[in-house]
């Protein structure tokens, strides 16, 4: 028995083989890394690139579409509105999220509110916007509450929604983006060492200021990319802007599809130019944000070492709690109002509740509600399932290779979330039109997948990487090849996160307005496109029915995803009980 440590090379090595953990990944797995790139990255990039030749051309010279665009009345207002609304909504969401966690990290408030936000993430933007509309409009619920005090017999002529400055739209965007950022921070928070904040507290710093000084910089780095995605979304949202946004003129992202549908061909070309301008606006907003970030950092640096303790922050903390809770409650109140409106036969202005009820909205909803639901569900299930299979394949490949999937890493996944939808979805719709794929349900599903896959992948990746790989090592040492270890051990144990990721993918697909409308060429309506289309009509009962159904479908998906493991693993406490200890390494 001999042993040498760090010994010299053996004079006559009997054999030299490089052993690998699992050998080269099989071809079918490599297919998945390419499929993720081909089905997510390529469409986003191709759609964007395709807009450029469309925008620069025409009979009047290569800048003619831009000249036409800037001749459209109010276009500069539209452009400035997009920039302003996107930045205000993002700044509000980021500020509220940061202050909330600064004030309440490691308290019960976090666990209570995090229970409230999960369902909010699943609610489509359009449904949330309609709910807010029914709450704050001049004839909305809030005005009905105060009408007796102010002596109103009729809704006041105030622009509480669709205001020309876009404040209601910014508020609506913040209602959806704040829960998203809360969710992102909740995921990042465990990686922040809580002893930092304790240290700040023992040095006499107030709770909020102490957190901002000690823990926030590391936290901000983790949520920076999602914030940029929020800017991209907020500067270019279409469905929410159609419901809550200014009307004359609307924001740029609403103006573009209007121009696109104009019978005047030169205005259609101007729409392409508008898409390029939209891209620039979003880039500019991100640039402004990054600049503001730099200024905030240097201000923060000079303030942080001056010794301000800011101990008396009790009132501020209360205010933060009230604003946060209100931000979340608005959406829930809105859902309640959607339900009431959907069954209201008559609901006169100052009355708090409808005086008569009817089920007409549900029983004879005008268009073919069942086929709308069916198409929405089919698109959701198809894109969520395909995204899940792709994500499992990509993650398994990462595991076998011991490194992330090839091809640009995070950029290839995040690209669709960082680009304005209106730009590359318009590009794709023109591209598909020229290929004859317009109004093709498979093309619509494919474009849904562009948005569904990143969410499914990112959700699943967390659980996948947490999984204790020794389970797989044991399965293999017991004689099971890698594929069997995946199918018989990893996937069943990860049933709960797999179903949750699927439900999230389904919710993302249900919420898609623009891709469904443009790629479907308006001929493949879903609940979402029909609900948004109703916004111009003002039939509140029908809006209630459509928007509520739209919100209900993701809820059902999440409920099923929650019940699934409890039923399948009802005799396996580790996987169905209150404590799911198993997906992580216990040590």
């Amino acid at each position, binding site marked *: *028995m001999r042993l040498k440590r760090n010994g010299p090379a053996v004079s006559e090595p009997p054999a030299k*083989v490089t052993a690998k*953990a699992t050998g080269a990944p099989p071809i079918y797995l490599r297919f998945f890394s390419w499929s993720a790139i081909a089905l997510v990255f390529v469409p986003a990039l191709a759609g964007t690139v395709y807009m450029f030749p469309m925008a620069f051309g025409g009979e009047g010279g290569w800048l003619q579409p831009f000249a036409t665009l800037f001749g459209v009345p109010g276009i500069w207002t539209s452009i400035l509105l997009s920039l302003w609304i996107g930045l205000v909504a993002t700044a509000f969401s980021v500020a509220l999220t940061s202050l909330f966690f600064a004030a309440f990290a490691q308290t019960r408030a976090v666990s209570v509110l995090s229970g409230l936000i999960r369902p909010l993430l699943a609610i489509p933007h359009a449904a949330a916007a309609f709910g807010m509309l029914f709450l704050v409009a001049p004839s909305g619920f809030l005005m009905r509450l105060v009408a007796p005090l102010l002596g109103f017999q009729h809704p006041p002529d105030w622009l509480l929604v669709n205001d020309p400055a876009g404040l209601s739209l910014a508020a609506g965007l913040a209602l959806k983006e704040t829960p998203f950022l809360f969710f992102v921070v909740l995921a990042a928070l465990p990686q922040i060492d809580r002893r930092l904040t304790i240290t700040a507290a023992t040095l006499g710093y107030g709770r909020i200021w102490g957190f901002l000084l000690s823990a926030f910089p590391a936290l901000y780095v983790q949520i920076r990319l999602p914030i940029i995605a929020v800017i991209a979304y907020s500067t270019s949202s279409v469905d929410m802007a159609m419901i809550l946004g200014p009307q004359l003129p609307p924001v740029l992202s609403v103006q573009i599809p209007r121009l696109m549908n104009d019978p005047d061909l030169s205005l259609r070309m101007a729409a392409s130019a508008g898409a390029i301008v939209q891209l620039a606006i979003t880039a500019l907003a991100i640039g402004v944000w990054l600049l503001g970030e730099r200024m905030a950092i240097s201000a923060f640096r000079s303030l942080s070492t001056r010794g301000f303790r800011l101990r008396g922050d009790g009132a501020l903390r209360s205010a933060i709690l009230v604003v946060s809770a209100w931000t979340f409650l608005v959406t829930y109140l809105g859902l309640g109002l959607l339900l009431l409106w959907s069954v209201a036969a008559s609901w006169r202005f100052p009355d708090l509740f409808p005086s008569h009820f009817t089920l007409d909205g549900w029983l004879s909803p005008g268009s073919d509600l069942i086929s709308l639901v069916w198409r929405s569900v089919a698109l959701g299930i198809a894109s969520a399932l395909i995204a899940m299979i792709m994500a499992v394949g990509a993650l398994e490949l990462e595991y076998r290779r011991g490194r992330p999937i090839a091809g640009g890493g995070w950029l290839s996944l995040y690209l669709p979330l960082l680009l304005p939808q209106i730009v590359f979805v318009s590009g794709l719709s023109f591209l598909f039109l020229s290929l004859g794929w317009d109004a093709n349900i498979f093309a619509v599903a494919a474009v849904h997948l562009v948005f569904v896959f990143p969410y499914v992948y990112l959700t699943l990746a967390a659980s996948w990487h947490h999984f204790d790989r020794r389970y797989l090592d044991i399965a293999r040492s017991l004689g099971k090849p890698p594929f069997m270890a995946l199918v018989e051990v990893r996937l069943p144990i990860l049933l709960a996160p797999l179903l949750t990721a699927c439900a999230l993918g389904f919710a993302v697909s249900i919420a898609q307005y623009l891709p469904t409308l443009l790629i479907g060429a308006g001929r493949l309506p879903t609940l979402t496109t029909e609900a948004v289309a109703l916004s111009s009509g003002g039939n509140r009962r029908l809006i209630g029915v459509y928007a509520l159904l739209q919100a209900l479908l993701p809820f059902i998906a999440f409920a099923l995803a929650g019940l699934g493991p409890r039923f399948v693993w009802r005799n396996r406490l580790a996987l169905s009980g209150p404590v799911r200890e198993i997906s992580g390494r216990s040590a």
Partner: protein
Amino acid sequence: MTGKGLLLDHLCVSLHGQSLFEVTTCVKPGEVLSIMGPSGSGKSTLINAIIGLLPSVFALTGRIELDGMSLIGLPVERRRVGVLFQDPLLFPHFSVGQNIAFGLPRSIKGKARDEAVARLLSAVELEGFAERDPFTLSGGQKARVALLRVLAAEPCALLLDEPFSKLDPALRQSVRDLVFAETRRRELPVLMVTHDRDDAAAAGGGVLHLGEAG
């Protein structure tokens, strides 16, 4: 040098050209070789090299032979080397019986599988536990089921990676005795990584020190 047992011949694992250790030893059937050494001395790397789970950043030279057959280049699932970790790691989605059946070779079919599981369970005083949820077992019971699962696969060698370190002292001895009794009865060569001198003493075999203390 060929014959029964686990042979490591000039087994050297290196990382970026730097060799971590070089081992030459032979573990005979029924024998237990204890491997001791400070953390970072490469104990887990040695275990991984023998199981076939060495990450590809490591380079391996030398021979690993089990009962005269070279293991090098074979995938994990064809090496017939069983492993027990410090956690029992029973599959949470299987019953106790399914966990053990998961290890049984394919050649045992149908009812014979259930009978084999029952026979294994009764040998460690766990009759009637086949339908139980592993979550409901005590620590000692889990350790015994984990042992049965690895033995069910009829391995030709067994590697123990600090297998008793998480058991409380009273249980520790009984589980240890059970493991060594079974491996001796089945004439398995055993390699055990441990921090505990009592484990090494109870094993009764040789001790290999990886790295110098410190």
